[in-house]
């Protein structure tokens, strides 16, 4: 078992969820209520990471983060090191790749809250912010948690984009999924098997948790 890779993967998953969740909640909520005519375009952009080959996404991200790109140059000026082939680089890539996993469940959850409850909150005198905090967020929480779990599990298993953007630098960008590939290349099937079993268990637990959360309805029971 490559414990260093496991720790890195868990750290990557955790940071991805922490940084992705707040904007995903806001974007999901906006998509749920807006009648703006450009909404389908934004929804298409959100889903894009799901349909793009990871290598294509990875290539564009690598180009965007490279030392000659504006983003790469700005990052180097600010932090004294390049963004590509670093933990912040794969974190940025991971956040982008996981946008659909976090945003879509949040959007569906806010859609399920319904306009009537938003209207009822307003006629109770709740400001939009109070309505969001007291009514919408608690009701959408199961959907938001589902998105968080999916994003976390997907981050642990992400391979192509992380490899393109981060390479496989031990302790910096070599995640568990990359370590499995590395072990198979080295014909170390025992290590690959134990790490694969761990990822399988985590993924299965995450999906089971997702189903459990999707059945949880705040309007049922005491």
């Amino acid at each position: 078992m490559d414990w260093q890779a496991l720790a890195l993967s868990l750290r990557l998953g955790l940071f991805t969820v922490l940084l992705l969740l707040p904007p995903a909640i806001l974007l999901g909520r906006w998509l749920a209520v807006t009648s703006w005519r450009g909404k389908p375009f934004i929804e298409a952009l959100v889903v894009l990471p799901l349909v793009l080959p990871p290598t294509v996404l990875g290539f564009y991200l690598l180009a965007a983060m490279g030392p000659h790109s504006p983003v790469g140059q700005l990052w180097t000026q600010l932090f004294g090191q390049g963004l590509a082939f670093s933990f912040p680089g794969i974190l940025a890539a991971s956040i982008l790749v996981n946008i659909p996993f976090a945003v879509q469940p949040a959007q569906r959850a806010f859609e399920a809250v319904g306009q009537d409850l938003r209207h009822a909150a307003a006629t109770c005198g709740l400001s939009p912010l109070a309505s969001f905090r007291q009514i919408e967020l608690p009701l959408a929480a199961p959907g938001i948690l589902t998105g968080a779990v999916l994003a976390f599990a997907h981050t642990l298993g992400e391979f192509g984009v992380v490899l393109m953007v981060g390479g496989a630098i031990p302790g910096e960008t070599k995640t568990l999924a990359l370590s499995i590939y590395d072990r198979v290349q080295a014909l170390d099937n025992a290590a690959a098997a134990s790490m694969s079993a761990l990822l399988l268990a985590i993924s299965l637990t995450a999906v089971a948790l997702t189903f459990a959360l999707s059945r949880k309805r705040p309007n049922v029971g005491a």
Partner: protein
Amino acid sequence: MSGLDLALRATTPVPLDLALTVAPGEILALIGRSGAGKSSILKAIAGLLPGGSGHIRVNGESWFDSDAGIRLSPHRRRLGYLFQNYALFPHKTALENVMAAAPDETAARRLLAAVQLGDLKNRRPAQLSGGQQQRVALARALAREPRLLLLDEPFSAVDRPTRRALAQTIRDLRASLDMPVILVTHDIEDAAHLADRIAILEAGRIVQCGPTAEVIARPASELVRDLVA
């Protein structure tokens, strides 16, 4: 003037072109066929519909005035709104639902007691019957000490005994409700029991308006006759 004074013109989502006044303590029933614009008028008064022109004044306070560029946010319009499907917050108890609009817990408890639900204050909407949910919604609509009360088909989703009980509750509360009340209904019986005046609505326009008994006794058109029959 005190009470409600409104003139509204809108083209979407349904066409509206009407003017009406409702005095404090008066109940005006809006009656019309499906799609006539009854609920849209209530939503427009509450600020829940975008666009439109005209004015809405309550006790002299301007909530909406397209000429003056005034459009108060929905949460700043001090009104009580009883929604057709009650729109209770499903994750909150009956008491918490009322507290969402009440100034304090004591006021919320008093209102729940007034609608005979003091014993069920800790139940969530899913644990209440349709009639009980309706009462919680009425208590919540009154909790904000509103300047105007809007009742959108309050009797549509309950059986006859529950209807009678709620109508009685509204009648009982009426003595202390010194505010204009607009009742949207498609049932002339409900209007006849509760309303002082009836306004018949068709395609967003008022086609007849007058004291309840007079409108029922002297319908001005075939449409009104059908609706009050």
